[in-house]
C-alpha cells in the first residue's frame, strides 16, 4: 500500500479526462467496441430500482459487491414537516408508500447501505452522494437516473442508466457499453455579476441544443468553469444530460480535493494522501484531442430564462419569446408554435413580462447551500408578490437544511412568504403531492421544462436560484443585475 503510484497517468499518449477514467475501468472489450466497464459506485433510489431487485430475486442472484451500493429515497416522498414526522405513514399516496417501503426492504434484504427517509442525512441522491463523499474523483458512478451526470463535477465518470442496467450493475458490478466520443465545452473569460453556473449551462444548451451532446461525454472547461465552486460545477454537470450527453466531466483541482476531504466516505490519513496524489492527474492532457470543441465567452452570458417546453428553448432575461413568424425553418417554426401554445405565450413577448404563479427553489440542479444562500440574499427583508400563489424552497438534503437553518436562511424565506420544506425531489418532477397547477407559470430552479413535468398542464421556466427569488418578489421575471 505504501507504494501505490499514480496509475491514472499514462505518459504514452495524450488522453482526455474521459479517456483516462474509461481506460482504468475497462474490464474487457469486444471487437465491435462493446466494453465491460467496472462500476465503483452505484446509487439507488426508490423509483427505478424495484424491478431490478425483483429481477435479481427471480434469477436467484445476489449483488456482486453490496458495499458499492448507496441508496436513499427521494423522488416521491412528501416534503411537508407534518407528513415527514409520521415516517412512512405520512406518505398518503399508497402506491408511493409501497415504493419507498420496497426500497427499505430491498436494501435490508441485500445488505445495502441506505439513508432512509427519516435519516437526518437523507436527500436527493445527487446531492447526498457528493455530500457524503460517496462520490470520489476518478470513480465510475451510475444510478437509474439521468441526472447522475451531476457527479462529474468531481471528476467522476457518472451517468444515468435504465432499470435493466441497474440490475446488471447489481449482479455484475459492470456496465456493458460502447465508449462515447469526447466533446470539450470551454467557457472562456469571466462571468459577469448576477450570472451563475445555471446561466452557463442553459446558455450552452441554447447553443448546442438538447441533442447537441448525444453520443458524447462532455468535459466542461475554461476559465469560467475553473472559477466556479464545486457546487456550481455540479449545477453545470447536472444538465449535461439536457444537452443530450449522458455524462459531463470537470477536471479535478484543489477545490475538488478541499470539497471532498473529511467527508464520511472519503479516505483519510495516509490513504487520503495517496488518493489525492492520484486524483491530481485527473485532468485532460494539454495536447489531448477532442472530437468536438464548443467555445462560449463568459462575458456574453446573461441570466437565462426558458420560455418553451425543452431546455434549449431559452432566452436571456433581456430578450423576447421568439416569434414563430420570424422563423424560416418549417420544423423549428412548428416546434415554437407547439411550445407557445402549451405555454400560453405570445411570440415576441418580453421575457420580463412573463408573470409567475409559482416559485420552486430546489432539485438536484440547485438545492445546495450556495443556491439557498443566493436565493435568500435576494428575498431578505422583502415579500413574495401577492399574485404568486405558491412559493417553496426545498433543500436538497437534510444536511443542507440543517446548515441553512443554522445560518437563519429558513427564517428569511419564511418571513418573505416562502414555504420551507423537507428534502426531496418535490416539484422538480411532481411525483409527490407538490404539483404545479394546470396552466400555471412556475419559475423553477430545476432542469426540465417538458410538458407536464411539474404537474399536469403546468408551465415551467427554468432559471437560477437568484432569478427565481427575484421573480418571487416581483411576480414576473426581472433582471437580477438591476436589483443592485
Amino acid at each position: 500500500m505504501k507504494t501505490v503510484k499514480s496509475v491514472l497517468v499514462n505518459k504514452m499518449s495524450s488522453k482526455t479526462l474521459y479517456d483516462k477514467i474509461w481506460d482504468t475501468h475497462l474490464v474487457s472489450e469486444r471487437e465491435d467496441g462493446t466494453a465491460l466497464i467496472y462500476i465503483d459506485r452505484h446509487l439507488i433510489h426508490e423509483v427505478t430500482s424495484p424491478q431490478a431487485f425483483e429481477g435479481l430475486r427471480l434469477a436467484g442472484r445476489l449483488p456482486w459487491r453490496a458495499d458499492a451500493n448507496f441508496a436513499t429515497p427521494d423522488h416521491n416522498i412528501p416534503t411537508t414537516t407534518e407528513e415527514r414526522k409520521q415516517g412512512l405513514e405520512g406518505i398518503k399516496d399508497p402506491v408511493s408508500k409501497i415504493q419507498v417501503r420496497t426500497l427499505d426492504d430491498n436494501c435490508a434484504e441485500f445488505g445495502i447501505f441506505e439513508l432512509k427517509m427519516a435519516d437526518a442525512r437523507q436527500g436527493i441522491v445527487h446531492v447526498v452522494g457528493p455530500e457524503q463523499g460517496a462520490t470520489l474523483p476518478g470513480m465510475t458512478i451510475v444510478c437509474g437516473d439521468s441526472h447522475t451526470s451531476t457527479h462529474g463535477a468531481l471528476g467522476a465518470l457518472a451517468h444515468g442508466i435504465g432499470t435493466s442496467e441497474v440490475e446488471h450493475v447489481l449482479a455484475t458490478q459492470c456496465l456493458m457499453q460502447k465508449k462515447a466520443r469526447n466533446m470539450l465545452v470551454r467557457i472562456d473569460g469571466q462571468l459577469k455579476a448576477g450570472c451563475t453556473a445555471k446561466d452557463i449551462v442553459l446558455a450552452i444548451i441554447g447553443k448546442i441544443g438538447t441533442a447537441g451532446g448525444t453520443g458524447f461525454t462532455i468535459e466542461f472547461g475554461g476559465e469560467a468553469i475553473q472559477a466556479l465552486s464545486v457546487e456550481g460545477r455540479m449545477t453545470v454537470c447536472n444538465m449535461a444530460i439536457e444537452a443530450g450527453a449522458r455524462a459531463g466531466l470537470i477536471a479535478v483541482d484543489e477545490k475538488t480535493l478541499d470539497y471532498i476531504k473529511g467527508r464520511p466516505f472519503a479516505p483519510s490519513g495516509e490513504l487520503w494522501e495517496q488518493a489525492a496524489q492520484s486524483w491530481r492527474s485527473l485532468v485532460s492532457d494539454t495536447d489531448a484531442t477532442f472530437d468536438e470543441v464548443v467555445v462560449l465567452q463568459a462575458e456574453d452570458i446573461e441570466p437565462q430564462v426558458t420560455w418553451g417546453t425543452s431546455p434549449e428553448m431559452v432566452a436571456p432575461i433581456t430578450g423576447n419569446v421568439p416569434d414563430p413568424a420570424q422563423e424560416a425553418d418549417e420544423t423549428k417554426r412548428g416546434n415554437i408554435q407547439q411550445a407557445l401554445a402549451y405555454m400560453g405565450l405570445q411570440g415576441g413577448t418580453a421575457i420580463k413580462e412573463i408573470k409567475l404563479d409559482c416559485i420552486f427553489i430546489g432539485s438536484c440542479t440547485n438545492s445546495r447551500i450556495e443556491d439557498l444562500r443566493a436565493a435568500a440574499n435576494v428575498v431578505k427583508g422583502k415579500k413574495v408578490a401577492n399574485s404568486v400563489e405558491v412559493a417553496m424552497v426545498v433543500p436538497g438534503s437534510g444536511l443542507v437544511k440543517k446548515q441553512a437553518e443554522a445560518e437563519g436562511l429558513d427564517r428569511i424565506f419564511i418571513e418573505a412568504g416562502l414555504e420551507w420544506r423537507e428534502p426531496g425531489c418535490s416539484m422538480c418532477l411532481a411525483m409527490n403531492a407538490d404539483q404545479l397547477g394546470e396552466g400555471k407559470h412556475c419559475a423553477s430552479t430545476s432542469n426540465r421544462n417538458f410538458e407536464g413535468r411539474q404537474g399536469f398542464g403546468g408551465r415551467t421556466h427554468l432559471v437560477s436560484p437568484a432569478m427565481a427569488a427575484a421573480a418571487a418578489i416581483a411576480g414576473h421575471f426581472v433582471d437580477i443585475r438591476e436589483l443592485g
Partner: protein
Amino acid sequence: MNKFIVEKGVVLPLDRANVDTDFIIPKQFLKSIKRTGFGVNLFDEHRYLDKGLPDTDNSLRPINPDFVLNQSRYRDAKVLLAKDNFGCGSSREHAPWALDDYGFRAILAPSYADIFFNNCFKNGLLPIVLDKATISALFTEVEANEGYQLEVDLEQQTIIKPDGSTIEFSVDAFRKNCLLNGLDDIGLTLEGSETIRNFEKSWRSTAPWYFMTPNATTT
C-alpha cells in the same frame, strides 16, 4: 427477454420532434414496482383529455380523438414512426416498457436519446435509425395510405414496404445477436466472472480508496 426476428404491422406516425420520456409515460405511473401494465398509459397526457392517475379505470376516461393513437386507422400499430431525438429526458425504462406493453415492436426515427435507445434493446424493442429523407418519405406514405404496414426483418436488416421495396438499416452486431436470440445480458456478462474478479482484485490494490465500506475510514 422477448426475441425479435421478423415483425410486421401497422405503422403509427408521431409527427413531433424531441418526444421526451414524460410524454411517453408521465411520472405518476412510475410508482409501480412492476414492469408490466404501462401500455394503457402510453402517451397519457395526449391520449386522454383528463389527468391520468395510477389505479384508475382508463376505459372510463375521456379520450382525445385528435391524438393519432386514438385514430382507428392506426389501431393495433406495431411500428412507431417518429422524429428527431425521440425518447429524450429521463432514464426511466418505463418508457420502453410502456411502448412494448402497448404492442409496439419497432421504432423508426432519425435519431434517439442515448439512454432511451439503449433501454429499448434491453426489452426486445428495436429502435432503428433511418436518415431524415427516408423518415419523411415514410410519413407521407403512411399518412396517405390507410392500413399502411411495414415488415421489419432484423436478421436481414431490412424493412419491407407494402410495394415490396426495401429499406436497409444498420444495427450493432452484438445487440442484434441478443435480440435475435432473446439473450439476457446479465447471464452473458457473468460468463466472464473470472475476468471481472481479476480486474477487481487489481483495481482494489491500485485504488483502495474506492473500496471503503460506509462509515469506515480504512479498508
